[in-house]
């Protein structure tokens, strides 16, 4: 059998993409993952995202039931509808995961994030920073004659907006918790 007519160098591509083409709009979803708080559980969740090439935009985790040793991991992720469905299914089959809730589709929910912003400056800039902080209902949790640390709570967009305003006024450092979220209503 003779050689097939393959151009030289035609084989140097990376592995192929198995993703099918249906529903290719990228969506942003907030997932609440309830887990047994046993060693390595966070590594399992994060390892799933890195191992299968999913995105993590934000992640928060804390034990919420100290007696039952349950933790709640809140993940903001993005992907096509098919990828989001896969993420939920893959999370659900981790043995230490008790439940996965997609807060984005399961009805209205509230999302909050906390940010700490350090703003250094003097004179007018310092006064302006304080004035804007008041508008955003950020509180001052540390103060020197040349700096403030503001604490602000709200949606990620609100914190983004506040940070954007602080930048020209001397923002030098920012720490954010990532999103915590709950479904609205009694259930």
């Amino acid at each position: 059998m003779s050689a097939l007519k393959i151009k030289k160098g035609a084989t140097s591509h990376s592995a192929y993409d198995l993703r099918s083409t249906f529903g290719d709009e990228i969506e942003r979803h907030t997932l609440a993952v309830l887990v047994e708080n046993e060693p390595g559980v966070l590594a399992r969740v994060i390892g799933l995202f890195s191992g299968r090439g999913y995105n993590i935009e934000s992640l928060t985790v804390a034990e919420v039931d100290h007696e039952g040793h349950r933790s709640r991991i809140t993940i903001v992720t993005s992907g096509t509808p098919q990828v989001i469905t896969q993420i939920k299914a893959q999370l659900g089959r981790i043995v230490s995961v008790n439940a996965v809730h997609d807060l984005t589709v399961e009805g209205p929910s509230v999302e909050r994030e906390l940010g700490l912003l350090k703003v250094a400056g003097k004179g007018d800039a310092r006064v302006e920073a304080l004035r804007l902080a008041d508008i955003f209902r950020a509180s001052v949790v540390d103060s020197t004659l040349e700096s403030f640390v503001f604490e602000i709570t709200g949606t990620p967009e609100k914190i983004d907006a506040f940070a954007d305003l602080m930048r020209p006024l001397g923002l030098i450092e920012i720490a954010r918790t990532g999103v915590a979220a709950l479904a609205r209503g009694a259930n």
Partner: protein
Amino acid sequence: MSKAMTGAKMVVQALVDQGVEVVFGYPGGAVLPIYDEIFQQNHIQHILVRHEQAAVHAAEGYARSTGKLGVALVTSGPGATNAVTGLTDALMDSIPILVLTGQVPTFMIGSDAFQEADTVGITRPCTKHNWLVKETDDLARVLHEACHVATSGRPGPVLIDIPKDVQFATGKYTEKKARKSYYQPQVKGDITSITELAAAMEKAKRPIFYTGGGVINSGTAASQLLRELVATTNFPITSTLMGLGAYPASGDNWLGMLGMHGLYEANMAMHGCDLMINIGARFDDRITGVLDKFSPNSKKAHIDIDVSSINKVVHVDIPIVGDVAHVLEDLLKVWKSRGRKTNAEGLSKWWSQINEWRSVDCLKFKQEGKIIKPQYALQRLQELTKNHDRYITTEVGQHQMWAAQYLTFEDPNRWMTSGGLGTMGYGFPASIGVQMAHPDALVINVAGEASWLMNMQEMGTAIQYRLPVKQFILNNERLGMVRQWQQLLHGERYSHSWSEALPDFVKLAEAFGGKGIRCSDPKDLDDAIMEMLAYDGPVIFDCLVEKHENCFPMIPSGKPHNEMLLGDASTEGAIQAGGAVMV
């Protein structure tokens, strides 16, 4: 009720309570207390392998041929890292195994101690679940939980890492049923979806059952129900590499294996069907070929116990999450209660179309001249062993595909092959695991010489435990599948796909204390195979075959099912550059 005992004793006690009879392992510093307990009891037989990878593959072979849990025991550090390939293999093929690893004492963890490795960290992505046990009081619970997790839902490998001080310390042993596990996968399928499937089956003109390893994993009842379903509907059935034997190869409705090296009629039927009923398979890329041309005009149903398999790569219309046996039982009930209707006219046309495809006889080959064709070797092996109580394992490559094509399987659990991971070196240790489970059966590992050499040290194990495993090596002195791809896709540049220094396999067998047989002439083949079968002990059968034979039929990379290559003549220009990126 709880008893006080050491952690090491708990390991043995829990295995006994779980009904484990055989453990494959290799001792080392961090598991010495467990080995000391094994020495002092007679309930569990320990098989000393020659490499930890082989311990895990042997446990896989044991598990696959029995449907029971396979167990391996290895030491810390290198023992654990050597187990990683086997764990990944078991994860990909959903095989229930428990791997116990020793670990350095808890007070030394994190200090880069001798033979320390972050075993749970390394094995987290290649196990279904794993545990590091830091308290002896937790050990019994974890052992029982691990066995439960490995064998429930979609089966898979689990690992328990046990520090040496936990093995030495005394704690409370809790019984198997002390605590209900929180891990309880759904086994019953949604009855509305099952009814929807039954209704689709009644209307289908061109239906096909596409079955996979999930049927085998679900247990022998699932295979029985599948056979009943095929008989009552008269639908054609094909299977993946993993599912061979669930439906008998001698059955009237059997189309043979599908996929990249599957049969023409099976792939054509998959492409042309109007209702595809996937039972326990996962639309693997070896099955689907190029996705956007995969069975374009069919309605697809998918029965799978793992919800993440549904819509992972192929969009399905009727998803049913549940265990195959449970779902088939309900499906049969619904089907019968609705009056066992089928579209008789459509089905009859479909069968005549399928019979046309069958008449192509895609596996035909010509044995002529003085060189054995690998297909011929397997055809003769099939002929001469078909009436035996026979189990087949394979390595990975061309021989594996030929074995799937030319050997036939009438029952589940008779065929052990590394499907998902494609692990060269799997077959020999797996054959040891199978022979341990079935001491009186004929166990044959169909191998290529390159794969076989990857775990050849296991000859020592076979000899030590008098396991009469037959190593049927199709020796083409090549990495045949690599060579085939280089021929088809890389301009016949055979980069490192052959060995210039192969051992004399007959002498090798003798050096270990086994029997070696070489055969190079087709006319001697039957006698040589009979000699192999007659020998009561491990045999290396060095079958010198045609060096440049290619494995056909073949769906070239980047092509749909209906554009198969049937043989050398039709392969000219068949694979385009775009297809070459796929593996």
